[in-house]
């Protein structure tokens, strides 16, 4: 197996010949939990009693509920990609890749390889035929191994394609002429943008969300490894502490400003609004029909000047946000989920929810009724060398069409939102077309490359 990139070894085809692997989901990959279960059942001598007991217990559980069907597994295959309306997991590792080759067949093969690996990892199995420990003693293991004995952790892997996959230097790539969706625009410059090229763009994005950071990191690490020579990581971002809830079953989490974030977010239970605001349609020209049922992912790395924020009075903080810090009620009154009343005016004749507050500017009522599904995460990337945390919000949103569902709102915020003007700085950006889900036996982006 040595020197054999993931999934490139000839596989037995039904006709007995060999062909490049387009291997079904259950053919490869060792169950991480299963592996250890066997060790427990087999009574490997070195295993200490306590561990053996634990593992035996695990083995029983594995028999009762084989890997891939546990409550910590989010199905990978389906009509939509997982990781969009899936209740937001606790952790994020997102990576954007540049495709460094110009060979269409190789890109398709990579997407097939990634599909198989993604399916394996989301069900808690290792990548490759022999996983982390069952391969040749003289070869590096096919799976990096740091997720061995960890549960699947509700891992979801969500793939999207950036403008650079379709065009480079104004020339079409990979035979994708006419396939770039109209909605996959080049985002305009928003006032105040301080985008760093090394944190912006990318040809393919992978969003890994899991309840365990090690599972999410393992996933991106193995996909990157599989892609070496074809793709190069352009940027990646770790996130902790989801800042929005995408299900009514979840409590609203807080961002690093200490405020509840995502109170008015679209929820997975909202089928009709999701159709209206999140799921993409076939578009207006035939070449983009492959996006029907997909979505568009906007990512923005938003640095927060948290030290300056922390020196700001509670009055000003609440005025900037438009909600109370404690329960998250709109300043017009009520509880967290009370609809904001933008008209109600106070003693000074000014609205209780200030004109330039974040809540007002971001609210659907102020944006032609458009909504988005946000899946942002807090991030802290160490410090900035001046004694301040390099921390903020890694904003992720899924929208039906960024031209109507993101750009106008972000333009308004960048121009008028005092919070954005004084306390935020956008340092990274990305827009990606997220194709619909994959059926078993298919591969990610199959419609695009059909």
């Amino acid at each position, binding site marked *: 197996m040595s020197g054999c990139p993931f999934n490139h070894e000839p596989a037995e085809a039904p006709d007995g010949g060999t062909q490049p692997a387009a291997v079904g989901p259950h053919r490869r990959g060792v169950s991480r939990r299963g592996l250890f279960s066997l060790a427990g059942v087999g009574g490997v001598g070195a295993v200490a009693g306590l561990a053996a007991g634990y593992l035996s217990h695990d083995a029983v559980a594995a028999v009762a509920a084989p890997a891939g069907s546990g409550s910590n597994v989010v199905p990978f295959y389906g009509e939509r990609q997982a990781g969009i309306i899936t209740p937001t997991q606790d952790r994020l590792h997102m990576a954007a890749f540049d495709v460094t080759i110009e060979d269409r067949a190789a890109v398709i093969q990579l997407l097939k390889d990634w599909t198989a690996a993604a399916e394996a990892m989301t069900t808690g199995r290792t990548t490759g035929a022999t996983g982390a420990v069952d391969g040749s003693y003289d070869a590096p293991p096919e799976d990096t191994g740091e997720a061995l004995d960890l549960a699947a952790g509700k891992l979801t892997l969500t793939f999207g394609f950036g403008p650079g996959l379709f065009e480079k230097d104004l020339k079409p790539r990979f035979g994708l002429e006419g396939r770039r969706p109209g909605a996959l625009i080049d985002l305009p410059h928003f006032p105040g943008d301080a985008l*760093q090229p090394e944190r912006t763009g990318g040809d393919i994005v992978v969003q890994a969300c899991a309840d365990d950071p090690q599972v999410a990191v393992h996933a991106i690490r193995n996909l990157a490894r599989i892609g070496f020579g074809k793709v190069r990581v352009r940027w990646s971002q770790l996130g902790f502490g989801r800042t929005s809830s995408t299900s009514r079953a979840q409590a609203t989490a807080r961002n690093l400003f200490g405020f509840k974030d995502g109170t008015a977010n679209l929820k997975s239970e909202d089928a009709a609004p999701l159709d209206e605001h999140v799921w993409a349609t076939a578009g207006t020209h035939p070449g983009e029909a492959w996006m029907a049922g997909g979505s568009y992912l906007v990512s923005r790395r938003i640095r927060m000047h948290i030290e300056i924020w922390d020196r700001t009075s509670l009055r*000003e903080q609440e005025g900037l946000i438009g909600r109370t810090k404690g329960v998250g009620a709109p*300043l017009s009154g*009520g509880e967290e989920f009370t609809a904001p009343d933008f008209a109600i005016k106070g003693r000074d004749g000014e609205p209780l929810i200030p004109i330039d507050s974040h809540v007002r500017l971001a609210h659907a009522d102020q944006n032609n009724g458009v909504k988005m599904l946000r899946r942002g995460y807090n991030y802290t990337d160490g410090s*900035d*060398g001046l004694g301040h945390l390099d921390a903020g919000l890694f904003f992720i949103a899924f929208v039906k069409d960024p031209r109507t569902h993101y750009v106008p709102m972000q333009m308004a915020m960048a121009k008028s939102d*005092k919070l954005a003007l004084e306390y935020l700085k956008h340092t990274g950006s990305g827009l990606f077309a997220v194709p619909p889900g994959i059926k078993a036996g298919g591969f990610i982006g199959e419609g695009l490359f059909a």
Partner: protein
Amino acid sequence: MPGTTLPKITLPKIASRSRKSLAIVAAAAAVPMVLTGCTDNTKSPGASASAGPIQVTSTKTECKVSTGSVPSGNLSFAVKNEGTEITEFYLLAEDGLRIVGEVENIGPGLTRNLVITAPAGKYTTACKPGMQGDGIRAAFEVTDSGNKTVDADFQKLVDTGVQQYTAYVKDQTEQLVTGTKAFADAYAAGDASKARELYAATRMHWERIEPVAESFGDLDPKLDAREADLEPGQEWTGWHRAEKDLFPPAGYTALTATERAKIATQLVADTEELGKRTRTVVLSADKLGNGAKELLDEVARGKVTGEEEIWSHTDLWDFQANVDGARIAFENLKPALAQKDAALATSLDEKFAALQAELKKHAKGDGFAYYTELSPAEVQQLAALVDALGEPLSKLTSAVVL
């Protein structure tokens, strides 16, 4: 250039923005009481066993106050609006007219704190559901706890400080208008070296009064927008437009004489308009205190990072000017602050002095070293002193206004 990049600062030097920040101050000014989480009354000797914020419940027909008598000191009222309309809560003096403290704009269901310092005496509490009428009143007593309360001259000290700062703003604005004319003349005439010489020094007058100047949301972007601040299609005018032309980056196409003249004329016109408007600005202690804090925020966000003057690298002139503006505001409030919180006054004195001493190390002739001449260690030292000052400075407003 050696020593121009800090090891971990990889952010591009694109300007951060700040504008209209005084609008926040203005909103705060409508209610002179700063609401904090202080609950000194809970610790006062003689406080009842059930101490904690005094609970006030306001409904359409009632104004329940959990106690009718408390010892003097800092009083904290937690006012909960259980009605369906916006409500307000007042603590009035014995005459029922003079407002000792108030909290406005409490939406239905919300709770707001009112924290004030009250000497012993008789008072009246009032809730005003719907913000109408005389409100629902009740007698309230503050007994003498033995804690020293503020001097009767306190308000006079505050008023004097505010007057002094108002005069300072006027003086700086006049100098800004005069200086801008000289700069604009040189720039329009194509005398680039003279314009470059005047650029940073003239801008200092702007930077000293930035929170006031920025309060005019239409003028601020016309005068002080950085290139990165622009929205698509927006015309770029003001200081930084000229800056890029005077300190051009590689590959930059210089403006024509006509374009320069247009920028210069507009700069003078907008600055004169600013001068006109600042004459009627009404300042108050909280505006001074918050303005001082904001000036330090400006330093931390844009100056100490070299983002403000991305082409001229004259950030230290702005830095000094922001510190000047903050220090003057503080010093104008210091006599009043000394009565309320002498330790804070002393601490701020020390920290202003330490920052000023460090800045002075980078003085060169009439001005300063360029930002690009600072070593990473020097930038880090300045940033540390800005933080050391910024933190206590953020407490100035509540200390004086409470």
